[in-house]
């Protein structure tokens, strides 16, 4: 099996994409889950503010999501651009 330089580069880009998206998905998943758990606690304590708490939870999760989106962007760049 003759392995060419271009082939190795492509193989490395594929592995890199998988690692970037795979490991990058762990943090946002756990972090957003914590946010949701605390939002449930807050609504349980003070159900009148459910609307405000839902909004705050979603904004907080959107910020936590950003690193997941960075991973997705890097993975897609590695797959299609590099």
């Amino acid at each position, binding site marked *: *099996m003759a*392995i060419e330089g271009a*082939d*190795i580069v*492509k*193989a*490395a880009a*594929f*592995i890199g*994409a*998988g*690692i970037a*998206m*795979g*490991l*990058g*998905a*762990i*943090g*946002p*998943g*756990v*972090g*957003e*889950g*914590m*946010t*949701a*758990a*605390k*939002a*449930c*606690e807050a*609504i*349980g*304590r003070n*159900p009148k503010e*459910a609307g405000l*708490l*839902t909004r705050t*939870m*979603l904004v907080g*999760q*959107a910020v936590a*999501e950003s690193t*997941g*989106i960075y*991973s*997705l962007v890097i*993975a*897609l760049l590695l*797959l*299609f651009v590099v």
Partner: protein
Amino acid sequence: MNIEVQTVVEVAAYVGGGLAMGFGAIGAAIGEGYTAARANEAISRNPKISGDIFKTMLVGQAVAESASIFALVVAILLLFMKVPFPTLLKAAAILGAGISMGFGAIGSGIGSGYPAAEACCGIARQPATASRLTTNMLIGSAVCQTPAIFSMVVALMLMFINFGGASLQPTWAAYLGAGLSMGLAAIGSGFGGGLAAGASCEGISRNPGTAASVTTIMLVGQAVAQTASIFGLLVSFILMFKSFPESTALSAAMALLSAGICMGFGGIGPGIGNGMAAGGAVQWVARNVEHAGDLMRIMLVGQAVSQSTAIYAMVVSLVLIFVV
């Protein structure tokens, strides 16, 4: 050095058996240790009913043990299996089976420890609810075992299905990827399901009147937390059963391996996160049952957002399988 194919298959089976049992022993041991620790705490609070607590501890630990028993079964099968037609492809499939079962047992073992631990503490708090708590504990920890069962199914399929005349290159990477995808993705869902089940046992012991609502929302939350491992199962089925055109290029094989790594790791975080969200919701349904509807709604919204990164990981791995 000329190595026979038969030798390679045996090496793969022994390494796979070691991986299956070695990694497979982690989760159940941690989960059972946690259960035992909380059972001691419970007995010290209420020594009069130590018999009931001890019994609940053993039942809960037995369920948590099943994850590592699956690993033991797969490891023993790997050690003693006879492969009728040894090929290099079969060697890759056997190694993938060991990886799938080994990683897949971690989450379920740890997760099942939580409901058992909280049930022991709950019985010390409210001895009258013992039977209700035991039932809820058994339902919750049975659901925690599903990811380990998925992993066992994938491992047995990799070991015993005759995949026929698939080409060695690049299909070997697809079989390893199938094992990684299922095994790693099962970690998060098993652990997350345990967090939800633990919170429900605690909640029922504090407010036994809410048991019906608590069990319902626990099951909904656990079902959503299972999605990450179902994505892993889906990707590993695609990797096992899609036929790949023969290609000696390294990149073709690495794309398939990477698809498994991506979905496997990508499923861990969302599985744990969904379990945390479900745990928070269940805990507060027990304390404030009038607002169970609001809590269920926000739990599902939060879980959906937390699930998004698992969906990104699935998209990237499907792109790796079908597009590049």
